């Protein structure tokens, strides 16, 4: 990138800059005319100068100038008008000028703003583009937080400066020069005086401001480091908690903030001191004018009129001077910021831009062998990780790399995946070095997958399909307003030097993918690889935990109500109906809490909504009037007593009380006091809070879970009665907060699993969960459309930032699935399945190998293994130790030797 921001701006905005200077100059004409008009209005029609005689006329719009050397020039003879018409005409002209000036201002500001924004867009894009072209080792020293704050915040002022980069000095310089020349014309000595003072201002002030720039640079660096540090805290939060180092982090942050404060405070002090000095110099000049000019006048060498004219002219000088100096400061400041930023984006070696060009038709499958030629790999300090190694791999081979960590096997795989670059030697596809080949070739012909993948926040499917999106295949067609927006977008992108690639295009080469996976649709291809890596069950589990969207999924919801019935029938048919205690209108569900039985539905929204319902007048009054409130109050007392008596002998955090969810453990003493305060028969007398708390205890009480015997037959009946009453007469504002349980309706506020069960798991039945699982699977697999919809739902699961909502094993399986989904000639699996047990590794590995061998032209597969347990599944086994190949033999030979030893 350009070292000088000025040159960068000039290179990309030259034409716009010249245009804006021209427009600014043009706008000066109406601007100065509007200064003159008020005087004309007051002196002419209002004061009546020129209208001394009745019926006299004065020319309107007469332009004549007294120019030096030329004499009087009449540009327009004007229109003769009487007094009143002239007043109207002049006022209207004034109004017109106001509008014209305003419009000029709008145009200029918009134009300048757009200019700045375009340049900002360009710089930001350039920076990110450079990140994409950094060599891998560069990222070891880069902090994500710092880089992102540079791209986001630090370049921001450059956009603002761009618009003023040329206009401002041209314009202000012109103004200052005019004023200075005017003074010179009046009096040469006074002119010289003004010039000298101006020079002092121009030379001294910027020098003093140098320190401001240094401080500004420090401020930028410390702020950037702060951003990096904060990002690190977020990334390392687990370690910080685990090792009780939060206070060390606090100390570090406080110290950094202290340093930043110091710098910022220094900046203020210095800034206002310089400001004072600047104002002082500006004010000293009139002082000299009064003194020296006065002296000249008194001694008769200057007349009074000239002195007044000089002083008046000088008024016009300090303003533009000051702004010019400010502009210069801004220039230096942004230049420094710019240097600070681009310095971070400079690397000795960059991946050549031409290697990353979009290429739809990178050739695949031409049987080129993979060659490792005298390859040496080293870490940052130069310690060798792999000693000079030469290997040859043919297409269609399956190769196991066997060796422990540090043996060199994993770094060789990394090098093939271009995660690390060789210190010497080469990796070649046929005759070509992979680092010199376009990424369109290497990135597609080689599929590399390790135990650490990259997962961005988004759905599982987006993460899975990401590596397939190498180049736009089918352009998205825009129509109507979208089309014109797209055109505008393209135009702007071009002006900012951004590429015109559209993420909305179809980027996946579906045809190749289907050929590769032998599936009929993209979805089926996805399911196939998910099956191989054994993620299908997890995905179904995600689907079961999904809440459907009533707008999008109403069809599926209808089908799930059918599944609900079928599930029930199947349970009954197996004589296992008891494992689920269903929600039945008119019946109390013993497996659910009293509150859930009363509400008989799910609350839309969170606990806040529930609160809203419970404190509503309707709800309170119904409970009171029906007598259920008092029953619940009494039962609450009983439940409280029982809980307290259970817990009084043992510490409340004893393992025995893990299942106590009636109230938080540290509330025990409060509950004890509550029970003493409010007796079991004090429903009417107890305070509102006490009454609510005791009723709440009953509401969350679940007889089947706690077994306190507090649920009497009478109360259960009453609950059902009040439930039915409420469902009949509940006001609409409360009704719409609840999704009721109705056997033929889908409950959107509940997840898919709850909807299929439509009841509570009866935990007293042995193996209830397993039976439900099995019956559920049987029912769902009967319907292809539902099974597929389930996988689809599961695929829309949000994996969270960095995939944190997945387990480590799920992430690794996903990473492996991504590699399998790609049609490549060489697959490298670098301990991809770390953390799985040997049986699972075996199953998945065999599945994957079988899948890849099915292809017409089977690819080369390299698999880095931690031990030799699985080596027998490969054609060829290469053993590594201490950075060297110690054995390289076909499977049978290897097995024989292994057996012998």
């Amino acid at each position, binding site marked *: 990138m350009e070292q000088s921001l000025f040159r960068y701006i000039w290179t990309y905005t030259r034409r716009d800059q010249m245009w804006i200077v021209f427009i600014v100059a043009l706008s000066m004409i109406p601007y100065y005319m509007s200064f003159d008009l008020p005087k004309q209005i007051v002196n002419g029609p209002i004061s009546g100068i020129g209208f001394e005689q009745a019926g006299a006329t004065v020319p309107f719009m007469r332009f004549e100038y007294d120019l030096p050397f030329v004499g009087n020039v009449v540009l327009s003879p004007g229109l003769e008008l009487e007094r009143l018409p002239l007043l109207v005409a002049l006022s209207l002209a004034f109004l017109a000028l106001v509008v014209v000036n305003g419009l000029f201002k709008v145009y200029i500001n918009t134009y300048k703003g757009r200019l700045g924004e375009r340049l900002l867009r360009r710089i930001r894009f350039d920076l990110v583009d450079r990140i994409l072209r950094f060599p891998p080792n560069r990222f070891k020293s880069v902090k994500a937080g710092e880089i992102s704050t540079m791209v986001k915040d630090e370049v921001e002022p450059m956009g603002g400066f761009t618009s003023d980069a040329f206009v401002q000095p041209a314009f202000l310089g012109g103004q200052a020069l005019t004023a200075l020349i005017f003074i010179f014309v009046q009096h040469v000595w006074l002119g010289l005086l003004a010039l000298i003072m101006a020079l002092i201002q121009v030379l001294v002030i910027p020098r003093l401001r140098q320190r401001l720039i240094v401080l500004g640079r420090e401020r930028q660096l410390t702020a950037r480091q702060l951003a990096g540090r904060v990002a690190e805290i977020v990334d390392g939060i687990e370690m910080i908690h685990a090792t009780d180092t939060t206070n060390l982090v606090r100390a570090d942050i406080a110290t950094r903030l202290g340093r930043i404060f110091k710098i910022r405070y220094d900046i203020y002090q210095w800034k206002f001191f310089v400001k004072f000095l600047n104002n002082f110099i500006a004010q000293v000049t009139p002082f000299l004018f009064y003194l020296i000019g006065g002296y000249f006048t008194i001694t008769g060498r200057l007349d009074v009129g000239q002195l007044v004219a000089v002083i008046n002219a000088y008024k016009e000088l300090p303003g533009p001077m000051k702004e010019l100096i400010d502009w210069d400061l801004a220039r230096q400041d942004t230049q420094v910021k710019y240097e600070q930023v681009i310095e971070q984006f400079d690397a000795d070696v960059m991946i050549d831009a031409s290697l990353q060009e979009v290429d739809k038709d990178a050739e695949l499958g031409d049987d080129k062998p993979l060659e490792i030629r005298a390859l040496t790999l080293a870490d940052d300090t130069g310690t060798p990780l792999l000693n000079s190694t030469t290997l040859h791999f043919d297409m269609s081979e399956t190769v196991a790399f066997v060796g422990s960590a540090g043996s060199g096997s994993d770094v060789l795989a990394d090098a093939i995946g271009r995660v690390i670059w060789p210190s010497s030697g080469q990796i070649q596809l046929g005759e070509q070095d992979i680092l010199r080949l376009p990424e369109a070739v290497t990135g597609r012909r080689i599929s590399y997958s390790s135990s650490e993948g990259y997962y961005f926040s988004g759905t599982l499917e987006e993460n899975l399909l990401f590596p397939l999106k190498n180049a736009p295949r089918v352009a998205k067609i825009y129509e109507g307003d979208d089309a014109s927006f797209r055109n505008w977008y393209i135009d702007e992108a071009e002006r900012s030097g951004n590429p015109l690639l559209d993420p909305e295009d179809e980027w996946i080469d579906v045809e190749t993918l289907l050929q590769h996976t032998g599936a009929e649709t993209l979805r089926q291809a996805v399911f196939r690889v998910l099956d191989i890596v054994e993620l299908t069950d997890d995905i179904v589990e995600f689907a079961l935990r999904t809440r459907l969207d009533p707008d999008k999924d109403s069809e599926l919801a209808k089908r799930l109500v059918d599944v609900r019935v079928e599930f029930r029938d199947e349970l009954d048919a197996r004589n296992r109906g008891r494992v689920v205690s269903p929600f039945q209108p008119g019946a109390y569900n013993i497996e659910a809490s009293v509150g859930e039985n009363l509400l008989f539905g799910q609350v839309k929204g969170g606990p806040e909504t529930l609160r809203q319902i419970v404190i509503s007048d309707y709800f309170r009054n119904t409970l009171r009037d029906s007598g259920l409130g008092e029953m619940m109050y009494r039962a609450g007392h009983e439940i409280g007593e029982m809980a307290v008596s259970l*817990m009084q002998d043992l510490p409340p955090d004893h393992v025995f009380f893990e299942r106590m969810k009636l109230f938080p453990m540290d509330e025990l003493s409060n509950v004890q006091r509550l029970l003493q305060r409010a007796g079991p028969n004090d429903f009417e007398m107890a305070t509102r809070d006490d009454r609510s708390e005791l009723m709440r205890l009953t509401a969350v009480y679940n007889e089947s879970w*706690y077994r306190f015997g507090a649920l009497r037959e009478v109360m259960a009946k009453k609950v059902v009665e009040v439930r039915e009453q409420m469902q009949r007469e509940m006001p609409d504002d409360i009704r719409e907060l609840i999704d009721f349980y109705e056997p033929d309706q889908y409950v959107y506020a509940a997840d898919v699993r709850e909807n299929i069960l439509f009841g509570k798991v009866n935990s007293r039945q042995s193996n209830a969960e397993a039976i439900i699982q099995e019956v559920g699977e049987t029912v769902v697999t009967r319907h292809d459309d539902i099974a597929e919809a389930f996988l689809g739902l599961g695929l829309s699961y949000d994996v969270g930032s960095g995939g944190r909502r997945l387990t480590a094993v799920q992430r690794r399986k996903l990473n492996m699935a991504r590699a399998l989904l790609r049609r490549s000639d060489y697959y490298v699996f670098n301990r991809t399945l770390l953390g799985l047990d040997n049986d699972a590794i075996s199953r998945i590995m065999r599945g994957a190998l079988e899948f890849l061998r099915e292809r017409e032209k089977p690819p080369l597969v390299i698999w880095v293994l931690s031990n030799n347990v699985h080596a027998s599944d490969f054609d060829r086994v290469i053993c590594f130790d201490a950075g060297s190949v110690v054995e390289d033999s076909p499977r049978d030979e290897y097995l024989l030797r292994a057996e012998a030893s």
Partner: protein
Amino acid sequence: MMCIRDETKALSMTPLLKGIEPSKLRCLAFASDRIIFEDGESIIEQGEDADVGFVVMNGEAEMTVDTPKGGESLGTVGLGHLIGEAAMLAGTPYFISVSAKGPVEALCIRKEHLLKLLEGCADSTSIALQSLSKRIADVEARQNEAVG
């Protein structure tokens, strides 16, 4: 519907827990799960990890032991019997298999809870030891019988 009171009573009937204060047994009952087994359903399987034990509350369960000759019945147990006790105390897999003979209702006690309870009572440790050694002796005797 049976409640904690009944469960506490059943717990106090088991030899191992006989001497322990009812208030503590009540806590143990609270911490445990009630489970219903259908006729013929397996309650514990010989050789599996003994993480839990079952106190029979209702019904009868049949004990069997696998021998080289096949399953050998060791008789039935009923109300107040703690199934899996020996294995839990000894920290070994289950010595025998037990399955429901007719519907059985039992209280499922987690091993960690049981040990936690015993740990707090000095008396119970010696009772546990006695109970354990007696049981092991019993089982061995029967196994020998079965083999011989």
